[in-house]
């Protein structure tokens, strides 16, 4: 019987370690639930990171539309096949780029849907502004989605043309029967975008710290949306609101509008980047593609230099003194191809201008011209276009036409992701392709159709 005490001792020793609670280990590198107002605001700020992503304004929202646009703007000389395919309009339904734009945009939407769903956790005094900021980002995400994944509004039949799925509620737990939305019509998506951006314009402040969205950021996007719809009165009104706010001024010289460490005076909305927070410097990020890999002397410059300016782009200029025609340099791509590089995207870790005031002048002028009648804002289309030209050192135009605005946008906004949408909304040919050619619309990602039988594929894929 004397062994019993040893046995019991061993047993006790054994039992000490047998505590179940040890198995409850919480992640130390992630948050597991949204519990208070600060958490909700953190989710809101997460939205800015998603907009900074290479799949959004950090690169693809801007760069991919220029690759899809006519090839008299830029040439892709790199080896990444996904990008090569887009520049040849040969993207497949498995396109990695279509997939990442889609996924990142819907993640941004989910993020904002959680914010809007949990808005009651936020201090009451802040609720309206937080919700408005969330709607701004959701509206922007839907705007980019409808541009890339559906036929343009100008193609008509908007109530019967497939847009993108409208998801307005968060997904906390996946339900395979519920979470498979079908595509809403182009019209419905536009209505949602306008509703979100209008709410945002109403409740956002006119000024904001840290380059956050303001009511004018929302109005600037509204101007784009209305212009796409051909709703020139509303487009001119929105652009005019931004211009007349007095919050923004064209930089005194054209080059000052780019490569700034913080928003320039003409940035209505810009994505901030730092050495610590950016869309990438080796395989991703707009500067990575536009910055030369080697300068003319062969020094390593750290970019890939895959995006080179097409010689034909220089035909767009009508005045040799136009500063914008000289805003270029020579260099080599990472695979050794010599070429010309725009200086708009020269420097890593600088602001990505998303909407500049110059665009608002061109939008107001064009919208006033196209709608006819008394110009909104009391400024003539000539005055608006020449405001932009004068800053660049180009001579004034008179008797401007709609196509002057198309060309001016190309000169002023080249490589900033405007060209494709301008041609599409005006039903102009995009190189050899008609404005509504299926090749100019990205495929609904195949993986998405594989998991959601309610989705239909775009024409041509």
């Amino acid at each position: 019987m004397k062994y019993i005490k040893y046995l019991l001792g061993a047993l006790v020793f054994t039992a000490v370690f047998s505590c179940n609670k040890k198995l409850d280990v919480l992640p130390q590198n992630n948050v597991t639930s949204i519990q208070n107002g600060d958490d909700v605001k953190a989710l809101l700020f997460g939205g800015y990171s998603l907009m900074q992503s290479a799949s959004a304004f950090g690169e693809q929202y801007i760069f991919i539309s220029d690759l899809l646009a006519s090839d008299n703007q830029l040439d892709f000389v790199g080896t990444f096949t996904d990008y090569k395919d887009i520049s040849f309009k040969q993207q497949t339904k498995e396109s990695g780029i279509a997939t990442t734009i889609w996924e990142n945009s819907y993640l941004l939407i989910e993020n904002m849907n959680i914010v809007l769903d949990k808005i009651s956790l936020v201090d009451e005094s802040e609720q309206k502004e937080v919700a408005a900021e969330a709607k701004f980002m959701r509206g922007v995400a839907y705007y980019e989605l409808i541009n890339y994944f559906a036929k343009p509004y100008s193609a008509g039949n908007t109530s019967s043309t497939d847009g993108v799925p409208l998801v307005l509620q968060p997904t906390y737990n996946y339900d395979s029967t519920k979470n498979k939305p079908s595509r809403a019509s182009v019209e419905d998506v536009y209505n949602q975008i306008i509703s979100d951006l209008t709410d945002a314009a109403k409740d956002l402040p006119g000024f904001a710290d840290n380059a956050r969205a303001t009511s004018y950021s929302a109005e600037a996007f509204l101007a784009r949306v209305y212009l796409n719809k051909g709703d020139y009165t509303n487009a001119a009104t929105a652009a005019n609101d931004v211009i007349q706010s007095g919050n923004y001024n064209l930089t005194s010289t054209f080059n000052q509008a780019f490569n700034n460490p913080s928003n320039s005076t003409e940035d209505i909305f810009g994505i901030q980047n730092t050495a610590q927070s950016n869309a990438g410097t080796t395989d991703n990020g707009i500067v990575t593609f536009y910055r030369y890999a080697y300068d003319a002397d062969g020094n390593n410059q750290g970019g890939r230099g895959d995006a080179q300016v097409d010689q034909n782009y220089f035909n767009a200029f009508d005045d040799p003194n136009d500063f914008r025609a000289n805003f270029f340099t020579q260099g080599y791509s990472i695979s050794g191809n010599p070429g010309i590089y725009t200086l708009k995207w020269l420097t890593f870790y600088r602001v990505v201008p998303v909407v500049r005031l110059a665009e608002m002048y061109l939008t107001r002028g064009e919208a006033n011209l196209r709608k006819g009648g008394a110009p909104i804002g009391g400024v003539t289309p000539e005055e608006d276009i020449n405001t932009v030209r004068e800053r660049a050192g180009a001579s004034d135009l008179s008797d401007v036409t709609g196509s002057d605005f198309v060309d001016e946008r190309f000169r002023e906004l080249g490589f900033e992701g405007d060209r494709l949408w301008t041609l599409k909304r005006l039903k102009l040919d995009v190189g050899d392709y008609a404005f509504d050619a299926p090749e100019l619309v990205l495929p609904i990602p195949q993986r998405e159709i594989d998991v959601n039988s309610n989705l239909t594929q775009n024409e041509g894929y």
Partner: protein
Amino acid sequence: MRFKFSFLIVLLISVLHVFAQQTKTVTGKVTDAKTGEALPGVTIKAGNSNILTQTTADGNFSINIPSATPTLIFSFVGYADAEVAVTGTAMDVKLTTSEKSLNEVVVVGYGQAVKRDITGSISKITTKDVRDFPAPSFESAIQNKAPGVVVESGSGKLGQGIKIRIRGTSSISANSQPLYVVDGLPVTSTTLSDPTNDPTDPLVDINPNDIESVEILKDASASAIYGARAANGVVLITTKKGHNNQKTVFELDANTGISNPARLRHFLNAQQYVDFYNQAVKSDAEYDIANDLSGFNSLNQAINYYNKKIYAVYGLTLDQLANGTDWKNNKVNTNWQSLLYNHDAPSNQINLSATGGDDKTRFFVSGFYNTQDAIVINNKFYRYGGRLNLEHNPTEKLSIGINISVDRSQLNRVTTDNAFSTPGQLVAQPPITPLYDPETGELNSNTLYPNGLFDAKYNSDKQVTNRTIGNVYANYTLLPSLAFRSEFGADILNLYQEAFQGKQTTDGAGIGKANTIISQATTYNTNNYFTYTPNLGEKNKLSAVVGMSYLQNDSKQSLTNAEQTPSDKIKNLSGTTSITFATSTDDRYNFLSYFLRANYAFNDKYLFSASIRDDGSSRFGPNNRYGLFPSVSGGWILSDENFLKNSKFVNFLKIRASWGLTGNAEIGNFSYFNLYNVSNYPDLPGYIPSQLPNPDLKWEKTAQTDAGIDFGFLNSRITGEFDVYYKKTSDLLLNINVPSTTGYTILTKNLGNMNNKGFEAGITSTNIDSKNFKWTTTFNAAYNKNKVLNIGGQIIEGGFGLTQRAVEGEPIGEFYGQKFLGVDPQTGDAQYLGEDGKPTTDYDAAARVVLGNSNPTWTGGLTNTFSYKGFDLSFFFSFVTGNKIYNAAGIYQSTGFWNGFDNETTDMLNSWKKPGDITNIPRIGFWSGSGYQNSSRFLYNGDYIRLKTASIGYTLPNALIKKMHFTSVRVYVSGYNLITITKYPGDPEVNTETIANIGGGQDFYTIPQARTFTFGLNVRF
């Protein structure tokens, strides 16, 4: 608290009192099984206790033991331990030098067993197989030595992760590497290194020369005692221990070696390159004319046009590639391939150990130092450290001990295969490009691709690991039949990695970059268990183990990336001026486990075994916190039955069968949680949702059935075993695609199943055993067939150049793509299998089909060992068959300049040139080339037979060394990877995907295996 196991323990206690304690004296004689000579000084230990005695000069012994003592354990230096059941009061025991003895002691989970009684499938590898091997970690040394254990070291780079698959791949997305247990302590075996480079192998910190044996638990009967972590098999590593009453033996083991690449591809030299270039331009011109594309009048006109077009598009001419040197007269002929290798890369190893013991204390101490240069430049491995294994008996009932090793290793690394900066990609540079800039005399920076030699010169990547693996234990014999053992162990791994990329280099991007990684992984583990071995009389033998185990792992890592260096002089963060990224992470997981195993033998002929483990883990969702993993097995020793007892041929025959469940818990630490990541927009820190919750998440489950035969013929001249098995893994951890309109792309779920079935054989035969000459042959072979049964209809892709997939109905890792059907002799076009089953020259119209698998079906090895007087000679051939290797670099190096100016492989010289040419190499050309895309054109049969090891040794005659006071002196020369027979044009043992489940057999400028010669000396004194 979990009461069920505590209850079992109490039950056990109450049983104990049935047996009163009496003592008896057992006497006998110990002899050498072969010569029959008496063995003096053999230690005899009574079962679990510390009651000891030794044989006298005439081999006799007498030991007074409790009559309940079930077995006596006989151990003697140079002989295999033998555990013999106590059946009466007299016993004669034969010890053998061969580890294949039936009384051989085999380490099993939480205990040990006699080989004869084992009903599971366990492969044992002993010290002589793993020692002195010219690779940092022991896994390379066991390649193809144990049937069913497939070891792939995917390149000649040192310190890389080594892929081990025991009886096939049994997971798709979870880690499929086995569990490694060192002296009872599960150790960290997954990489903690730079996540942007290939995984490294933390097992390099176990000195192979300290290893006494490696037991590989293959079937569920053997491994289910490790429950939720056993589905990939378990590798038990036991380090060397001292023996009682043993004169202290010092052993010095030193060797030195040189290594060179085992197999190289062949690339064009300067003359061939220029000719091939001209031929490519001519091919373009001829194609143009033949197809009337541009309406040229003459061939020369067309050639001129295409020469100019190359410059217009690529901006490059041969003049530029030659940096102005006279390429027309072969002024420069740079062999870029030779620049990426160290020639006669040196390696040195020194091990010094001492083993000994008196009647109360046993010890093993060792110290080691080794340095090894890889065959590839800038890749080195250094290691030094020591070990102490000490055990002491304060009383006859209690023993306490410690096994501890400390070690520091340093690995200097090169970048992953898919980087311009990696030395392997130097082969892409044209041979007409000079190594040194003709103007400046400096290293040439004006090369076709970024010159990786700059990276080799200015970059560095060093990781230093300090590691302590140790455990302390106490063993108390409560009753002759009952012992309690408590172990507490820790594995403390600290890794510091410092990488620097100079301004001049591609990776340094003109600004200079540095990064550091500090990792700390601490595992602590305690095992507490009772071993119960009652003496139930002659006919019944029972042994049982019951206990618990708790393991906790804490892994912390801190990563910092910085850039902007004023110069290349300071090669760490202090030389940088802008931090671009810094983070630290903290992860924990734990397992709380209870286990029970009982082995019962009736009449020494009918064997039964059952085990069960209950595993709880922090990794499992709240709805599935604990998993039960049972196993049952049985064996029948036919040779003890009357109908075989008198057979002259069969001296041992056992059939056995087992079934059991095991789990794979390598599913991630926090996979079941709803997670939000932290995002870092400037001045606006935030969250982004990252993972959908799944509270049902649990381990992957593998049910395995095994049947086997163990045999010994002709008085064990021929021994061996055969096994067949069927493994079915279900509840596979899969990332199920969900519509990303939810904001998420995947949901991690347990879904689907796959199976592995196979056959294994191992045979050892002593062919000749005369006084002076001995010849033994060991052969093993294994066949495994994997099949993915159900993964919810998904197709999961992996691989590198050519897609590999996991898809239902096919084995995992199946190559999938366009099937190359050869070259049309009329046009030189590559032909592919079309959708309609007919050949097509249109790549886009080609069907994508299954093309083969990267995993071998058959693997095995053959060893022949000869000894004549003092000489010993051995040859080890290793083979694999049934697998394919894809040369993912083929689309750059074998496409006739389609993809640019890369240097080409010499086989391209046989390309199609004119109608009627019969060749397998399509038409070349910058524009009109054909067959340049990924397809089975670059997929090769991966079968090989390799003379892995050949060694010759000479043991100096005793008469000579006795005078020098040595016990033994042996000198040896060994060669590794000396002969390779394969159809693959490169080295067949390459895999740029290292340890991936789906991807494998992909060669992308991968460094071949080393051919090594070592010269060594082993002295005992």
